[in-house]
């Protein structure tokens, strides 16, 4: 098993650059981070992009599809969306897109708050190849293959490292 540090700031810069060229940035978009890792990333992006409206935080614990298996997440906290969702352009931020189940839960929760004009999915990393639901990221810092594992820790400093398993070693 090897562990490789990745420069989180570079990923954040890449995302900001890509986001700024998107037309929704002219439409007063609202940013939402998914607790916990996504909220850390969103905080950085929100600062770096100098966004006016406050950052929203989603806790998707009550929306997970595995409640009947794992029960409640003991660290669940309330979601905090400080503005109306209706007709807003939402930038949904998570740390890693992997199976797509978290995004499904987050979208369900967002739509329980209202009907957004659009949702743009931003993740620090797109872990490709193991999707279980039909989602794709709009803006990402980097892509990796899904047999590699990513560790994200934060909020300050935000650290990202790549963990590589090789099956032969097992």
């Amino acid at each position, binding site marked *: 098993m090897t562990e490789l540090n990745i420069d989180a700031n570079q990923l954040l810069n890449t995302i900001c650059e890509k986001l700024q060229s998107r037309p929704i940035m002219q439409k007063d978009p609202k940013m939402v981070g998914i607790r916990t890792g996504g909220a850390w990333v969103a905080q950085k992006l929100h600062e770096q992009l100098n966004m006016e409206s406050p950052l929203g935080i989603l806790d998707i614990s009550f929306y997970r599809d595995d409640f009947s298996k794992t029960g409640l997440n003991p660290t669940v906290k309330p979601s905090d969306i400080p503005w109306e969702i209706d007709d807003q352009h939402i930038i949904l931020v998570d740390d890693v897109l992997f*199976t797509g189940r978290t995004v499904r839960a987050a979208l369900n929760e967002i739509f329980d708050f209202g009907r957004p004009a659009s949702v743009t999915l931003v993740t620090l990393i797109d872990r490709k190849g193991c999707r279980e639901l039909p989602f794709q990221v709009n803006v990402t810092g980097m892509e990796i293959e899904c047999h590699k594992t990513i560790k994200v820790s934060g909020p300050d400093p935000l650290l990202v490292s790549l963990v590589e398993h090789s099956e032969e070693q097992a």
Partner: protein
Amino acid sequence: MSPRLSAPNPQLNELGKIKHFLTLEGLKNHHLTEILDTAESFINPNTNEIKKVPILRGKTIMNLFFEPSTRTRTTFEIAENRLSADVASLDIATSATKKGESLLDTLWNLQAMQADMFVIRHAESGAAHFFAQHVAPHVHVLNAGDGQHAHPTQAMLDMFTIRKHKGDVFDLKVAIVGDVLHSRVVRSQIQALSILEAREIRVIGPKTLMPTHPEAMGVHYYDNIEAGLDDVDVIIMVRLQNERMSSALIPSEKEFFKLYGLTEKRLALAKPDAIVMHPGPINRGVEIESAVADGPQSVILQQVTYGIAVRMAVMAIIMSNAAQLAQHKSEQASLELEIDSELESKLDVTQKPTRSEEA
């Protein structure tokens, strides 16, 4: 503690987690704290709004009220709806039991309608325990008040209200004023306050409305309200339970107000930031003055709102514990299977790659 040395608590499952919620007796600080923390997660900290969440979708909860109730029943229904459960409320006092059906037959019929949880209010002490003993293993029972015995969700919402205003129940001086003898709410409140280690619990009222030995409950008794309210952080007023009094235990309501009613003047004896609570329904001019009930230190209406979140928490935790127990059992079963197959095929050396945590 070895399970052999103590009778198992019928409220807890094999993993020591809450399965039925019947009384606070026998529960630990961590059980209560989990309920309070979970309740917190249902309330938006900025707006106090309680949002609907989908966790109990597909579960059926039946409210069986053998005794009339407005507040408790309504907040239970709202709580169940906010958890996305399917809800049926039965006014049993006016239904089948009147036609001669036994309690157990009623229970089994309702269970056959695919109930996952019963919320029960009954005039007899022990009714919820009785139900819990007879339901199918996958069905849960929640006590919404039984006779003079217990009303655990009310006590928990009171603890939640105290925590919201005072930060913690630990180290507070709490005075409970009124009809302690007939009140299931007070019994549960005293248990909750003891488990959460309040510094001092006082009960205040005429001797005729007190149990023979109030000290046995771990409380200090005061028959003088002025002395009892001195320097307390929390005042809990409870109403006279006229429907549970078989004889006149107080001269008159007027007299009671004169001796024990909470007035602004008496409230001033408590700490300046003391809060005033009341489980409702309040009787203005009997146990509490309107100026106090509607005053700045009163948190009576917040208690009602918090009741929704606390009841959501209890129901969510019970279903979550059931899910975790089922998962635990199936893991145990597959572990045993694995060991069996390992023994059978010792030649098979291929190993599954270990799957590590996703970030």
